[in-house]
C-alpha cells in the first residue's frame, strides 16, 4: 500500500493497523456472510471496532460505509470505543431477577462506584448488563472473561474482580 493511497490519509490509521485489518478481512472475505466474523475479529484485536476500520471493510466487501456502520451500530456486542481491561457482566434477565439480581446489581454498582456501561477511572473494569448467560438454574449469574459465576453475591463478585486484578 503506497503512502498516497486514499485510505492512508484517514487520520489515526498507521501502517500496522491497516496491515492487520487487511489480514482479518482477507481471512473471511471468501465466506458466505463475512461481515460479522470480520467485526468479531476486529473487536478481539482492538477491543472495539475503530471507526477508521469501517470504510476499509466497506470497500473490501463492496458495501457502502453507511451499511457497515449500520451493522456495527445495530449489535450490542460491537463497541465504538475501547472498554476497560476487564469487563464484568451481570445478568439482568428474569430468572436472575427472581433470585435478587436487581439488589445485587445495586450493591455491585455502589461497591465499584460505576453505573452500567461505565469504566472505573483507572480503566481496569467496565460494567455491562447482559440478558441471560444461560445460567438460569443457578441465578443470579455474572461473567468476567472466561470466568463464570453462579449463585452470585457481592462477596463472590468482589472476589472474582480481585482475582482478575481488576
Amino acid at each position, binding site marked *: 500500500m503506497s503512502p498516497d493511497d486514499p485510505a492512508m490519509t484517514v487520520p489515526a490509521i498507521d501502517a500496522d493497523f491497516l496491515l492487520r485489518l487487511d489480514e482479518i478481512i482477507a481471512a473471511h472475505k471468501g465466506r*458466505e456472510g463475512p461481515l460479522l*466474523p470480520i467485526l468479531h475479529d476486529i473487536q478481539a484485536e482492538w477491543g472495539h471496532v475503530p471507526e477508521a476500520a469501517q470504510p476499509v471493510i466497506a470497500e473490501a466487501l463492496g458495501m457502502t460505509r453507511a451499511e457497515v456502520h449500520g*451493522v456495527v451500530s445495530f449489535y450490542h456486542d460491537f463497541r465504538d470505543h475501547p472498554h476497560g481491561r476487564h469487563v464484568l457482566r451481570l445478568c439482568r434477565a428474569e*430468572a436472575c431477577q427472581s433470585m435478587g439480581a436487581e439488589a445485587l446489581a445495586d450493591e455491585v454498582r455502589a461497591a465499584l462506584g460505576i453505573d452500567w456501561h461505565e469504566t472505573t477511572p483507572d480503566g481496569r473494569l467496565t460494567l455491562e448488563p447482559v440478558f441471560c448467560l444461560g*445460567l438460569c438454574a*443457578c441465578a443470579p449469574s455474572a461473567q468476567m472473561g472466561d470466568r463464570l459465576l453462579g449463585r452470585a453475591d457481592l462477596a463472590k463478585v468482589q472476589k472474582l474482580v480481585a482475582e482478575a486484578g481488576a
Partner: protein
Amino acid sequence: MRVWVPLDAAARALGADEVAEALSREFTVTRNGTRGMVWLEPLVEVERDGVRYGYGPVMPEDAASVAGAIRTGSEHPLALGPVEELPWMKAQTRLTFARVGVIDPLSVDEYEAHGGLAGLRRAISVGPEKIVDEVTESGLRGRGGAGFPTGIKWKTVAGAKAVRKYIVCNADEGDSGSFADRMLMEGDPLVLIEGMTIAGIAVGAVQGYVYIRSEYPDAIRLMQAAIVRARQAGILGQSVLGSGHAYDMEVRVGAGAYVCGEETSLLNSLEGKRGIVRAKPPIPALEGFLGRPTVVNNVISLASVPWILTHGAAEYARLGIGRSKGTIPVQLAGNVRYGGLFEVAFGMSLRQIIEEIGGGTASGRPVKAAQVGGPLGSYIPHWNFDLPFGYEELASKEGLLGHAGITVFDDTADMLKLARFAMEFCAVESCGKCTPCRIGSIRGVETIDRIAQGDETGIAILTDLCNTMKWGSLCALGGFAPFPVMSALTHFPEDFSGRREPRREAAE
C-alpha cells in the same frame, strides 16, 4: 479410576474447574456435560464396576475430602449413590439428552458406543424421501417456540429447486430461563451435528451453519471442536460416512441481539446485515439464507432427529399428548429449589413440574407465578398450575410453551416491575422495523411508570397499547411482549393499583 467432573457452563460457574483440577492430581478426570441437576453441581462422578456414583454439590473446598472418599470407598456426606437411580434421573424420559452428562462430549468413539450415528446410518440407507416422511410422522414440532411441524418444513425445502440449499441451526437461545440448547451443545455437540447432517441429506443441502449467541462462549468452543472431530471421523465432508452425500457445517457467532433468535432476523445477521426482521412471505424454506431454500430449526428440534431415525417415528409419536408429540426438555429456573433440565413426555402439569420436580421455591416462600416460555411468555399464576404442558394446552390459557423454560417467582415478586421489564427489554431489543414494537414498547415503559406513580388511568391505555402491539407487530418480539405484561396485569391487578401508597412487602 475414572472420575467425571462436568465442563458445563453452569457447573463451571459453581466451581467445577477448581474441583476438576484438584481431582486430576490423583485421578483420570473426564470432563462431561451436566446431568441437568444444577442444584447438585459441581456433581462429581466415579465409576465402580460399571456403575457411576455421584457426589454433589462438591465445592472446591470439598475436593480433598471427596478425593479421599473416592480413593477408599468410604462414606461421605456429599455421596449421592448411583446417579442413574436418583429420583430426578429415573423420572425422566431422556431421548434427546440421553448422552448429555454421560459421555466425553468430544469423543466420537464414546458417542458411537452410546448409540450415536445409528440415526445417520439409517437415514443414509432409507434416503431423503423416507427421512422426511419419518420426521413428519414423528410429530416433531419446532422446539424453539413456534411449534411448526419440522417434517413439513423439510418437505418444502426438499421440493424447492435451487443450486444450493442450507441447514441453519438457530442456537440463539436468548430466552431467560432457557438453557437446553447450551446444555446440549456443551454436553453432546455431536448429536446436533448428526441431526443437521440428516437434515442436509433429507433436503439436499450441502452446507450448514450453527448460529450461536456470543453469550455462550463455552458452547461455541465445544461445537467448533466437535465439528473438527466430526470431519476427522468422516461424518462431515465430501462423502458423509462414505455415502456419497456431501455435507459440511460451521459455527457462526451472534453479536448480542435478542431479536436474532427470530428466524428471518437470524438469516439477515448470518448474511452480515443488521438483524432486521424480514416480512414473510417469502418463507425461509423457499428464500432463506442468501435468498436460497433454507431449513431453519432450533437446536433441540435438530438434535431430536437422530433418535427418531434410530427408533422410528412411531416410537416417538407414542409419547406426549394431543398434537404435542414426543419429549420436551423442561428447564426449571429462577427461584426454584431443584433447578435444572428435565426431559419428559409432554403432558405433565405445571404443578407437578414446579412443585414435585422443582420442589417449590429456593427461598422457601410460596410460589406466586411462573413465566413460561421466556421473556415473551405469560406469567402463569399459581392457581392455574394444573395446566398440562403442551403447545395447545398452554395457548388455551394465553400461555406460550416457547422454549420450555420455566422461571419461578416467589410471593415477593412485584408483577408491575416485571411487566415494566418486559416492555423495557422489548424497547432495548426491538430491531426497529415496525412501529408497534419500536415505539409501542417505549410508550409501554412510560405508561407503566405512570401506573407505578399511582395514575391508574394508565391501565386502560396500557391494555389498548398491548392490543396494538400484539396484532400490529411484524414478529414475535413486539407481538408477544404483551403476553407477560397483560398476564401480570390480569392475574395480579393488586400489583398495579394503589401504587401511590408505599408498597407493603408480601406476607408480612
